[in-house]
């Protein structure tokens, strides 16, 4: 791994709500075109780590650097510009409920590009088609199923062709087939658009299908206890917690 390859670098990160420390001393690097998994048992701070990475929450200590620039050491405007290079799919989709799917995807395009409304409409149709929602442009989020909302959330996250896509529990609440399609979509986007993917999940099937790098957070010791390719971790890790997690506790 060369330094130029590093896309997101986390150094000595401590996350806390007030005095309550969630995780401490996190150190890892996400390379370009990685599909990077943040995993760990329930309540270990996976989603909080994601909020730190996307700049929604300032770290209690340590740094999150994107392309070598510390997200919290730069001016707020610069940070906002950096954040715009992220696409985020939130756990519940987080579509804006007063807007149609098309308007949801179009809003960031309208804000940050000089495209004409017709061009935006074409782009919106393309993004929705990519996630298998062609023809649903005029539906409101409440009118479609949970799985479709998630996919629409992906379409919105992809709207500005981001450098990094974050997914918060993409397969939670999806049936196996939809979940598989979402995995394929993640891999396809990585391969075709060279996007770096950061995925918070604990779905093993999905982890082994898509990941080539990961970090394992442990809720008891409140720090990371493993990193690397999940398949390698499963087969070669010496930490019983990690192997137990990655084999559903079958090889304890």
């Amino acid at each position, binding site marked *: 791994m060369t330094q130029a390859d590093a896309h997101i670098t986390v150094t000595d990160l401590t996350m806390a709500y007030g005095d309550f420390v969630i995780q401490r001393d996190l150190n890892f690097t996400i390379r370009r075109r990685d599909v990077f998994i943040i995993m760990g048992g329930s309540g270990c701070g996976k989603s909080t780590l994601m909020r730190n990475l996307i700049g929604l929450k300032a770290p209690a200590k340590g740094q999150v650097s994107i392309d070598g620039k510390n997200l919290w050491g730069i001016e707020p405007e610069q940070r906002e510009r950096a*954040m715009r290079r992220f696409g985020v799919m939130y756990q519940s989709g987080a579509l804006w*409920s007063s807007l149609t799917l098309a308007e949801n995807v179009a809003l*960031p395009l309208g804000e940050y590009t000089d495209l004409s409304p017709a061009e935006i409409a074409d782009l919106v149709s393309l993004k929705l088609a990519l996630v298998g929602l062609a023809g649903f442009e005029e539906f409101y989020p409440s009118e479609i199923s949970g799985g479709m909302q998630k996919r629409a959330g992906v379409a919105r996250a992809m709207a500005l062709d981001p450098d990094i896509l974050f997914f918060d529990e993409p397969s939670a609440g999806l049936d196996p087939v939809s979940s598989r399609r979402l995995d394929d979509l993640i891999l396809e986007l990585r391969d075709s658009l060279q996007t770096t993917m950061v995925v918070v999940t604990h779905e093993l099937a999905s982890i082994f299908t898509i990941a080539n790098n990961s970090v394992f957070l442990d809720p008891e010791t409140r720090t990371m206890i493993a990193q690397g390719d999940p398949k390698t971790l499963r087969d070669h890790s010496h930490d019983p917690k990690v192997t137990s997690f990655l084999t559903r506790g079958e090889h304890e």
Partner: protein
Amino acid sequence: MAAVSATATQSTKQAPGLEISPAGSDSLLLKLSGAWTLANPLPSSGDFEEALGTGESVRRVAFDTAGITEWDSGLLTFLLKIESQAGERHIEVEPEGLPEGVRRLLQLAAAVPPKATHKAEKPRNFIAVLGEQSLAFFSDAKATVTFVGESVQAFGALLRGKARFRGTDLALVLQDVGPAALPIVTLISFLVGLILAFVGAVQLEQFGAQIYVANLVGLAMAREMGAMMAGIIMAGRTGAAFAAQLGTMQVNEEIDAFKTLGIQPMEFLVLPRMLALMLMMPLLTIYANVVGILGGAVVGVNMLDLGATQYFNQTQTALGTEDFAVGLFKGSVFGVLIAIAGCMRGMQSGHSSAAVGVAATSAVVTGIVFIIVTDGIFAVVFNALGI
């Protein structure tokens, strides 16, 4: 099963029994019988504790459960209590005598050791509660000032033509806080005018000064009650709605989604709501004034035998432009306050459905407190200024 039906039904209804007897020099035998289900009054584990209390010598506890006809969680909780009491005294519990299902479930319950979760809160004394409340008050005051500051910034952006929000959103909120609020404002203002007239009429009739009911109702509505009633209605109706809408968006992470795209929720969500209330509240205040005066007129004409024209002429001479101006000014200020209270509580809302309820309640309370306190200050200031 058929052959034993008579005795079986008899025995399933048999109350759960517990017999404790010594077995050997250092062990106790617990003989359980009958139906150990939650539907029956179960023996307490206190008997066991008593049996233990007498001798230090007990080292083992065994079970005989051959007499148990049926069991459910009731038996399990009883056994867990026995286990913990025995554990405290370092007495060995021999599970061999228990039904197999019970043994497996007890094992399952013990599989994950209880975690030290630091959840046990210490009982707090009065001083601590007072201190916490005061700190909470100051941090709340700070949050309010911050929110007002952010709103001013958003308005700055609006004046510079840089604010980003959708016109359709503004139109929707305008419709919701204006025309849609008319029926309830009509009803309340009309009744308030009516009530004021009744109260005045009883007193003024004694002096034969019924005509001054028109002055009373007119002045009270224009200077005070029109703006205040419209304000309180809007605080309950719109302030709560704003808080609930924004709070729900907070729960759905919609607000986070705005932030990651670099779109200011203050501009996109809060600004149209504030603008709408600031535009509509003065109009609603005027409307409430007129309807309230009409309510007073109904009493004046029907009860006090005043002519309609006479009543309105009297109202006209009693009311100056400055009286309406005072009410209008108050109404506008109340509009801003309600919008601040509603939007602030919504944006501060936590990430759960209970938090949205708290936010809505808090928005109404905050809004009404803001209105009443401000109205009190206005009363003093206007008096001092002689307006």
